[in-house]
């Protein structure tokens, strides 16, 4: 059987990829996808840990994350759309109406 640490490492790697994507990429859609990668990395970690611990809490948590993630996706895409309608861009750098 594959040891749990493999899953954890994979989860960590995915999470890091997600973080890097958010930090590096400037396209709003890609940033948003990177955030989804982060959430799914967490899901993988939770499932793996839940199985390793022999408790269902981890799996239950994943359902919640998926549900909330779906809600977040709906809201997020709507927000990106609204911003695109008013600004005609999906580049993060061009959303600069407010400056300190």
């Amino acid at each position: 059987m594959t040891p749990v640490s493999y899953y954890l490492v994979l989860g960590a790697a995915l999470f890091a990829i997600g973080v890097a994507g958010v930090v590096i990429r400037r396209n709003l859609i890609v940033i948003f996808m990177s955030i989804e990668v982060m959430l799914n990395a967490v899901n993988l970690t939770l499932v793996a840990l839940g199985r390793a611990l022999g408790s269902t809490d981890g799996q239950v948590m994943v359902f919640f994350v998926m549900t909330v993630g779906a809600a977040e996706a709906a809201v997020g895409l709507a927000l990106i759309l609204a911003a695109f309608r008013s600004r005609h861009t999906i580049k993060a750098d061009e959303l600069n109406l407010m400056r300190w």
Partner: protein
Amino acid sequence: MISGTIGAALDASWRPVLAPAVVAITAMAVMLVGSRLGEEDSEGLGWLTFSGLALAALCAFAAVGRHAPAFAGALIVDDYTAFFYCLIAVCAAMVVLLSLDYVPALELPSTEYYALLLSATVGMMLLAAAGDLIIIFLGLETMSISVYVMAAIARRDPRSSEAGLKYFLLGAFSTGFLLYGIALLYGATGSIKLEAISRALQSSALAASPLVLLGLAMMLIGFGFKVAAVPFHAWTPDAYEGAPTPVTALMAVGVKSAAFAGFLRLLLVYLPALHAQWGGALWVLAALTMSVGNLVALAQNNVKRMLAYSAIAHAGYILVGMTAAGGAAGAAVLYYLLGYAFANLGAFAVLVAVERVEQPGTTLADLGGLAKGQPMLAAAMALFMLSLMGLPPLAGFVGKFYVFSAALQAGYVWLVVLAALNSVISTYYYARVIVAMYVNEGAERKLRARRPGLSVALAVAIAATIIIGVDPRPYVEMAAGAYASAAGIARSGVRAAFLAH
């Protein structure tokens, strides 16, 4: 009496979540009623929302003194929860009063607006009551997702959608961190219940495990975003500036109180065993948050943006209290949030009153000559600024005093000195607002006719800011009692923590 009749009608297991349930039901009612009404009836919807929140506050108040686990420990019902239920419901109700004017003036979709406000409130309440990691996550997200949309709800203002989008992206990003932290903590301790996690961490071997440390760090980052601690504050100024002003008020008081409610309970009540680990991190966060917030606030000409940085700075003072940990610190933070909430709500209420429809956003120049045209509004704003500055005998002063005392008692002398120096800096930008109103001349302009709701909100904020400061005893009692009940120590324990050696 009220609690009796309502309580009898409901099954006992629902009683602990009565307040959020009332808010949730109101949200559904608003959606149902709103779909039948035209936009011109938005004020009626507002009052429906308001009464739901008022009822929730009453339910929460009636529950003071009861301790009952609910839903197998997923929710904790104690005085701490009741304190935050009340605070959050009152804040949300005040925001409704601010919105009565604003929603029709900006032609915001009223049904969605009030329904979202209520669902955000449910999220805040859940976060304050959370007894396990799932509820922390759910509460946080219910609150955040609603507020993302509310920030972007003024669709005709491009700054509003930009604010919502930025808030959303960074908020979702931080949720990822928080979740990862939750997963790791769960993996290390084998439970999602805070109580069990706390017990598991009593063993020093586990407390030092890298899984726990990494999980803790991730959760600190996640909460750091939500409470707008530097360096996780990048979203704050834009989101505050671009969002419709009542929504900004909700973010500054409701979201902040709820986030601190969850954060405080997690760290101080359930993870004191790890204080050695998170204490240092919070020290740095507190120092950075105060200093950056105050220094950047100096340069602001937009009052909303200035209040955003001021909110960051105040998060820094609160973090000073949390760094200290212990009974007095917990009570001090609760008291601080109370005073901070009313002064901030009042300041935003004034901004709502002076804002122009065609050009939202208020600069210092827009406040020019306010003292001449609107002496009461100007005096109220001055009062709120003085309270935020921390001048006695207003609520802000006693809050600062309490937090400083708790931190000094825990031995954080230099952090408190830094906080004091920061307060000196803050004097400048708060005083600038006063100068703008009282000294500078401004073009005479007619303000929008005010509805009574806004005046009521202002009056409540003024009264609270003065009363909580002049006679702090009952509120200190409340804060200390609330924290004591969460931490499972006697009320005298909190008092003794301050008084005895």
